[in-house]
């Protein structure tokens, strides 16, 4: 039977070609783990390739998944740079000695909140963007229900929002933990837990992903979704009937970060990328890619749609305290026991 045999031979040849890595380019290679949206990852890497001639291999995964991967690969690291994603896991990676210290010459061009976070992590990570926490509500649903527009955290505990609020689960999402930490810092520990217990009755679902509530509010699956404001802006730009709220009591924020992985195989290119990613022109790509966070470089243009920090009452978020593993476990365990276990 000639046909199957020929098929087999072709299959074997295909197998071989598939398994052979491509030849290396002259400027060398770089492997980047990217934890922002694909839309933003791709133009970033293309721009870096154009600027330097380095061949970039990029994987996009959520920050939790990337953290797991870096941990699992610690004995034999595959990635060079971890770019983007909320700051907590980057801080954790620094704490667990999975990333290395690097002081970029561009450090002086950055906003103070970015350099302060770097100091707290012993320069093992650095802020590349920041985004404030808040919530968005669906205007169509709000008018239909004839509820007054909410403006503060406290509004979310009102009975008219019963079963209308969506927020992520702090067990699975860094966004939700940022909310817990923010409320504890804004209100103080005991009042914050009282508020959370009251709001728990209004929550229809604790989602697993941090950005999901913004989407649910955009489609009207829920009335209010608590998220980072830039996620809500993305929905609004896409045409969703949502209004964005920076709560009146003040709110916390995340610092999206970047780290170099310990044992990176292309250390020189990793540092090149690190310096480049902190430059104003690299950070300008965010706005073009529909990402509306605040860039960490002072000279980078701020996208006009981005929620400006000047118009938001920002708290002095203590990343060192609330980012530590011990405090995180304590807060989440208490939330689990006192809030989540309660009746709705």
């Amino acid at each position: 039977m000639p046909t199957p045999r020929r098929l087999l031979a072709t299959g074997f040849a295909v197998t071989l070609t598939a398994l052979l890595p491509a030849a290396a380019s002259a400027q060398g290679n770089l492997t980047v783990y990217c934890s922002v949206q694909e839309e933003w990852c791709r133009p970033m890497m293309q721009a870096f390739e154009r600027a330097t001639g380095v061949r970039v291999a990029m994987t996009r995964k959520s920050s939790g998944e990337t953290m797991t991967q870096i941990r699992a690969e610690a004995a034999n690291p595959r990635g060079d740079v971890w770019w983007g994603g909320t700051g907590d896991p980057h801080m954790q990676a620094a704490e667990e000695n999975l990333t290395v210290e690097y002081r970029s010459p561009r450090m002086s061009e950055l906003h103070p909140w970015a350099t302060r976070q770097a100091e707290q992590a012993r320069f093992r990570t650095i802020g590349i963007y920041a985004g404030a926490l808040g919530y968005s509500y669906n205007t169509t649903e709000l008018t239909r229900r004839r509820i007054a527009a909410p403006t503060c955290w406290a509004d979310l505990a009102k009975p008219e929002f019963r079963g209308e609020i969506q927020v992520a689960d702090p067990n699975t999402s860094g966004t939700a933990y940022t909310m817990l930490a923010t409320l504890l810092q804004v209100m103080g520990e005991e009042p914050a837990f009282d508020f959370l217990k009251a709001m728990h009755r209004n929550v229809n679902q604790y989602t697993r992903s941090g950005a999901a509530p913004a989407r649910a509010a955009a489609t009207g699956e829920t009335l209010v979704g608590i998220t980072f404001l830039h996620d809500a802006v993305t929905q609004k730009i896409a045409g969703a009937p949502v209004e964005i709220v920076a709560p009146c009591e003040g709110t916390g924020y995340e610092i999206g970060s970047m780290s170099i992985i310990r044992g990176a195989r292309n250390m020189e290119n990793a540092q090149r990328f690190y310096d480049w990613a902190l430059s104003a022109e690299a950070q300008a790509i965010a706005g073009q890619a529909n990402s509306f966070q605040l860039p960490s470089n002072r000279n980078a243009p701020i996208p006009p749609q981005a929620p400006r920090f000047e118009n938001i009452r920002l708290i002095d978020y203590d990343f060192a305290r609330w980012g530590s593993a011990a405090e995180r476990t304590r807060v989440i365990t208490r939330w689990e026991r006192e809030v989540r276990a309660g009746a709705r």
Partner: protein
Amino acid sequence: MGALTLARAALLCATLGLFLAPWHGLQDGISEVTAWPGGSAAPLVALLLDGSRWWLWPVALLLALAAPALLRGRAGAGLAWIGAGLVLAVFGAGYAIGLNGLQWGWLAPLLGAPPAQPSLGWGAFLVLAGGIGLFAAGQAARGRFGADAFVAFLVCSCGFLLLLFVFLPLVNMLSAALYEDGRLAPAAFGARLVAPEAWSLACLSTHAGCGVVWNTLLLATLTAVISTLLGLAFALLAVRGGARGKVSAGAFRAMTILPLITPPFVVSLALIVLFGRTGIVTGFMWDWFDIPRSRWIYGLPGVLLAQVLAQAPIAFLLLDGALRAISPSLEEAASTMGARRMRVFCSVTWPLLKPALAASFLLAFVESLADFGNPLVLGGDFDVLSTRIFFAIAGARHDPGRAAALALLLLAITFGAFALQALWLGKRRYTTVTGKGDSGIPAALPAGLKLTCAAVAWPWMIFTAAVYGIILVGGFVHDIGRGDLSFTWRHLGTGFEVGWFDGPAFIGSAWDSLFTTIQVAAISAPLTAGLGILLAWLIARQNFPGRRGLEFMTMLSFAIPGTVVGVSYIMAFNVPPVELTGTALILVICFVFRNLPVGVRGGIAALAQIDKSLDEASATMGGGAFQTLRRVVLPLLRPAIVTALAYSFVTAMTAVSAVIFLVSARHNLATVYIVGRVEAGEMALAIAYSTVLIVIMLVTVLGIEKLVGRARLGRASAAAPPIRAGA
């Protein structure tokens, strides 16, 4: 094949590995081969002579020990020891000395401080294959495996592969349940196993949720029962539904294949578009019947619906095959003796369907246990074990110990299901395909039963059509989630734009992942089907020590949730001696061993219906095990092969949880890309990409069916004129 032939081939293979092929893996690709026979591409013999791998001398000595007897034409039982020694020497040295020098500290007095040793390469692979061959030849020479060296070699190599790619990573990963903060802590292990998060019954009395174990069990049981019944209704209509049934059979088959080839998440997304709080159906019900809009879809009902949509077609495929294979002569005999149609169905057809029913129930049950995508999107507050494990690994609170303990629970449930199945089927025989002529016309369905089947099947068809309609439309309108239904090519363009710069250029962001996915699926599908059928034949037809163990291991990888498999693969294959992460090979291996159970179970079920006398006839006429397999068994197993091929291709294209940790920058997969799009809220692009995948899979599955062909068992059909029925 005699033991001597096998042993000689094995020796040749190992010698090639020793003298020619590079011993270590090539880190920078095939270009390194130019360094041969020195540098990083050096074969073992060069490394031994320059003294840099002196601890591998036992490999060469063992081969030298085996050679003289074989050259003189004697294959003794001692070969087994030599083969085992080879495998142990290669792996022992590989694990003992890693990238950072000595790994096993207790060997320091013997080995000193050896240099770093990179991963094993092609040379080592050939030596290992040779070692296994020698081991098998030794066993056959000793009279084991019916003294058939072919069978011995198959069993030994399958066993070795299963140990390496299923058992070891798993044990490695699950042992994490025993540790807390890097220390052995049996108390923590106990506490994790009986944790209230798993076993709490709070939902019976309060508003709080129940433990994940109960949630998982409830969901899996419901999914399995409903899917099997639906599949049975479809299969009865398609096979025994009479002339009208024949007409609709084609439509059934076309429709039932759709859910099978749908990437995960997509059905869930479509269900949200239909039944979400602002969904199409929900809005309609509210406007017309004042049924208040609720969020019922988020939770058990939604996940159940999505899983049944996915599992009912698989049940149909299994039951359809079994129903076709039931010999009509048995039913004819029953009706000749005066039994009514209902009686024939209850006392002949139904009992003969038992193995297939059990297989379909078990498959749906286990698939539901392992399903990750649907609970993720539709679960709401309803948590199951697979999602809980994923977030224990990848969530904000990382706890591998907890994940491992939950994985153990999941594993226990799965094996409980297998045990129950074995208990129910018992030791009865279900053989219906024999060498004897069995012409006859299949009995028609009893009228009442036929009506019931039609009443169940048709509404479900319409529902499925609606769900798929949403998926088809969703990729080509501006925003289906918000009801903006104006036509656009935009989403498809983002993913699959093709430009022209001195030749076609694939600009779209989805091309890379699509090409990799097709490549990986196309490579792994035939491997899975081949290995699976082979294992099925070994397990069902050969008698050898360790048969149960082999069967157990094939089922193991299926029972493990994908996330656990993915993480265990990274942990096991990221460092030498077997270094695979970041390659396409690890994706292929992962798919082959994950999908293997389908081939094996399908093969076993099909073999259970083929009488052993056919094998015996072949053996009597002087055919060896290899000839019997090729000339008798394989042709009769065609339907099982088709199913295994199609299934493994399709799952390789749609799997998410297992590969989400295994994809690398160079080898990304379509599903992982789609998950990213869903996370970013770009439902439309996700749906558009899924549509493309569905089209590709549909073409491939139909192509496979056409190429390999449908089984023809020489049965008459009701439509054929009676005069030809006996021919």
